[in-house]
């Protein structure tokens, strides 16, 4: 059993790299898109708010797996063509964006109205209030669930194996396809995912403590 694991490890590195790249792209793009759309949901005009609400509720209402197939098989049919890798990143990013929108909304709305008013009273414009008053405070509320959500992205990325993207999950299955030793390799895979995600959640707990000084 140890033999198979040793044999598989170098092969799995390539897959691990793809998993990390897919996760990083998903997390990065969704952060930007989610914060922008989240602001639109909180501060936008009514039609825009409804649109973002519809987007978020729809995306969060369907399984990632279905979203993944939809983007991969469905988008080319309506003229948007991309390879499996980018289809996977797009689908995961759509899903994560909807989550980021909700984290942001929760974080911003947890800040008392008085903070906005105090910002207004000293003459800050809307953008200045967001930047100097609201966001620094919302960050504390936003970070812990967001970092926890990063582990979701890593876990979700395992689904891209179904599109034939050679991520960690897929490379594990490929090794099994050759060695027929399923159990040790799945356990190894579980261990690798565990190490990545456990480190991430440990980091999230530390950040949470660091930002807990701001109360009142």
């Amino acid at each position, binding site marked *: 059993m140890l033999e198979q694991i040793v044999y598989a490890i170098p092969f799995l590195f390539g897959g691990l790299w793809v998993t990390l790249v897919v996760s990083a792209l998903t997390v990065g793009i969704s952060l930007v898109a989610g914060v922008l759309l989240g602001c639109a949901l909180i501060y936008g005009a009514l039609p825009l708010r409804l649109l973002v609400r519809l987007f978020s509720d729809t995306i969060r209402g369907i399984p990632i797996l279905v979203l993944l197939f939809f983007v991969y098989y469905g988008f080319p049919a309506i003229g948007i063509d991309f390879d499996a890798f980018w289809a996977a990143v797009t689908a995961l990013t759509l899903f994560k964006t909807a989550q980021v929108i909700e984290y942001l909304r929760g974080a911003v709305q947890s800040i008392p109205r008085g903070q906005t008013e*105090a910002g*207004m009273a000293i*003459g800050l414009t809307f953008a200045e209030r967001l930047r100097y008053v609201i966001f620094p405070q919302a960050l504390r509320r936003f970070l812990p669930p967001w970092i926890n959500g990063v582990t979701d992205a890593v876990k979700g990325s395992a689904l891209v194996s179904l599109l034939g993207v050679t991520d960690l999950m897929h490379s594990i299955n490929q090794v099994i396809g050759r060695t027929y030793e399923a159990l040790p390799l799945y356990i190894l895979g579980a261990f690798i995912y565990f190490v990545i995600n456990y480190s991430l959640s440990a980091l999230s707990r530390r950040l949470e403590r660091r930002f807990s000084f701001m109360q009142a």
Partner: protein
Amino acid sequence: MTDPLLSIRGLRKSFGEIEVLKDVDLDVGRGEVVTVIGPSGSGKTTLLRCVNFLESYDAGSIRIDGEEVGFSAPGQRRNERTLARMRAETGMVFQSFNLFPHLTAAENIMLGLRKVRRKSRDEARAIAETWLDRVGLAHKADSLPAELSGGQQQRVGIARAVAMEPKVLLLDEITSALDPELVGEVLEVVRALAAEGMTMLMVTHEIAFARDASSRIVFMADGRIAAEGEPRELLANADDYPRLAAFLARFRASYF
């Protein structure tokens, strides 16, 4: 009072079905300290919040130094940037302090100075320190709000507002959220500002303080100004105004 600094005319404001301000006229002259008293729900806080347009109003006008506050023309709301600039001309101190919890005492004061008044970091810091010293908190410059007592937080709140050198200072029940033993230190700061000629419009339940520190008291009831006058005179003749007399009955022990 030929040239009032703040001039409110025919102000009306409703929240849904409820009309909270019904045709309010009020002038505040330069250097005047006007105190608004009245039962809760009488519209006094709303009146104050209309002055720096934290609340919009439905009709009437509010002018500071001759300039209309919230609207460029009737029904034409000013844009965000202009509103921000106009709000910088009034200072506001809040009932619940509303200090920015992520900034130290000094940084709370510096934020407006830097971003609105465009002062350099050093200049802003110097002004902040001057004002913290004035309110007796020089040693707390680098403390976060959570590390300050309520009275200290409110003194920072006042320093934050006056450091901007506003034309008018609005004080909204600034001692209501404080423990009784902390009220004195805050009112002392306000008294000193009044003595220096700062124009102030304040809402308070501290009748004795209003009597001693204001140039005029305005009594509001049901969204209207029901009585106004020189403090001692008004309080002495309160019996001419049944509603004022009823309101004051609750406080009699404290201000006589």
